């Protein structure tokens, strides 16, 4: 789960973000402690603390003094916004760039996306962007 691709504290932050986004950690749920993360992933506790603090700074977690870390109200929605922003950079930009190289026009691309999209268009899944 932990690999060499980037600093470990960032990976810890991402693991927690994923759990918040997926609802594994609900709003107001308590997050495992620094020491629990350290023991589970066999990492330095200071590194685990840094990952957790990153999310505190971003307002996704908050500290209850003497008790522990908890998921902030609105954290899943904030993550959704963050990921939507990244979605454009990570997928749409390269997709349209490659489509351009291949001579695939916007209309054709839209048709391809519609036929591939898992949400049936009658449910209006893409309408509220």
């Amino acid at each position: 789960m932990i690999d060499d691709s980037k600093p470990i504290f960032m990976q810890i932050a991402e693991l927690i973000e994923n759990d918040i986004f997926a609802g594994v950690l609900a709003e107001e749920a308590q997050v495992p402690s620094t020491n629990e993360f350290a023991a589970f992933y066999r990492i330095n506790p200071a590194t685990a603390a840094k990952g957790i603090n990153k999310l505190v700074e971003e307002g996704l977690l908050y500290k209850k003094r003497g008790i522990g870390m908890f998921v902030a109200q609105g954290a899943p929605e904030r993550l959704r916004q963050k990921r939507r922003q990244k979605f454009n950079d990570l997928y749409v930009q390269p997709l349209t760039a490659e489509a351009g190289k291949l001579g695939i026009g916007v209309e054709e691309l839209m048709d391809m996306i519609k036929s591939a999209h898992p949400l049936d268009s009658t449910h209006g899944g893409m309408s509220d962007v």
Partner: protein
Amino acid sequence: MSEKIAVSAQRLTKTFKDVKALDDVTLQLESNKIYGLLGRNGAGKTTLMSILTGQGYPGSGEIEIFGHAPFEHDATLSRICFIRESQKYPDEYKVFQAFKAASLFFENWNEALAQELIADFNLPVKRKIKKLSRGQLSAVGVIIGLASRAEVTFFDEPYLGLDAVARQIFYDRLVEDFSLYPRTIVLSSHLIDEVANLLEHVIIIDGGRIVMDSDAESLQGAAVTVSGNSSTVHEFIEGYPVIHRDSLGTLASISIRARLSERQQTEARELGLDLSPVSLQQLVVRTALGQPVQSETTEGDEEAKQWSV
């Protein structure tokens, strides 16, 4: 109780006959951090650790532990634990007697932890130490090192003879106890990948000199290996410092020093390139140990073999 800087060394030099074991070494160890002291055999690791723990004198240079020169200063020495790779115990000692002696010497000794570790490692405490296997002898050192809870603890290649399961017990217990009782720990190791995630700071020594002294974090993800069609790879890596190259026919695999953005990673994959992280061990072997940058030889692989033991 513990100061911010646990150990401070200035311009240490040590010469054995005509060999410079330490050459102008300056470093500081902060309190409550886990350090990795990495280097090849003969690089000067053990000499450095002996001096940093007050068990050996430098030829020249200054050393302070908790603000005191450590040599024969009992109040300081009882706060320091140094487990040597080939730690010697009195010949007739039985295992439990070694623990008894350690418990008297180290002011923070925790007997309950010692007993748990004895059970973890399944150590025969009534056996004479000289009858122990290499692994059991290492376990004695690991137990003393952890149960001493010394504010500064050095482990010199602590895992010799320990099998994979026993090494994992050591790492697990180390993280667990360090979480509860933070202190300064220095691990000297060849098995870099095994300990990489435990380290907060990495010091690399080669030929008696410190060649790297940096946060582990700044080394993680600091390099990436790009593989695929040779011309595509070369186009993609243009402008980045190359730390290693391999090629096979039209395929190339080139490690570069770079932190690629997610966007760049996506682009690489769209070009049909494979990206794989460069581990701390590879990074150490290929960058810190005098590997000529951009060499096309296989020296790096030979070094990698020596390192992976």
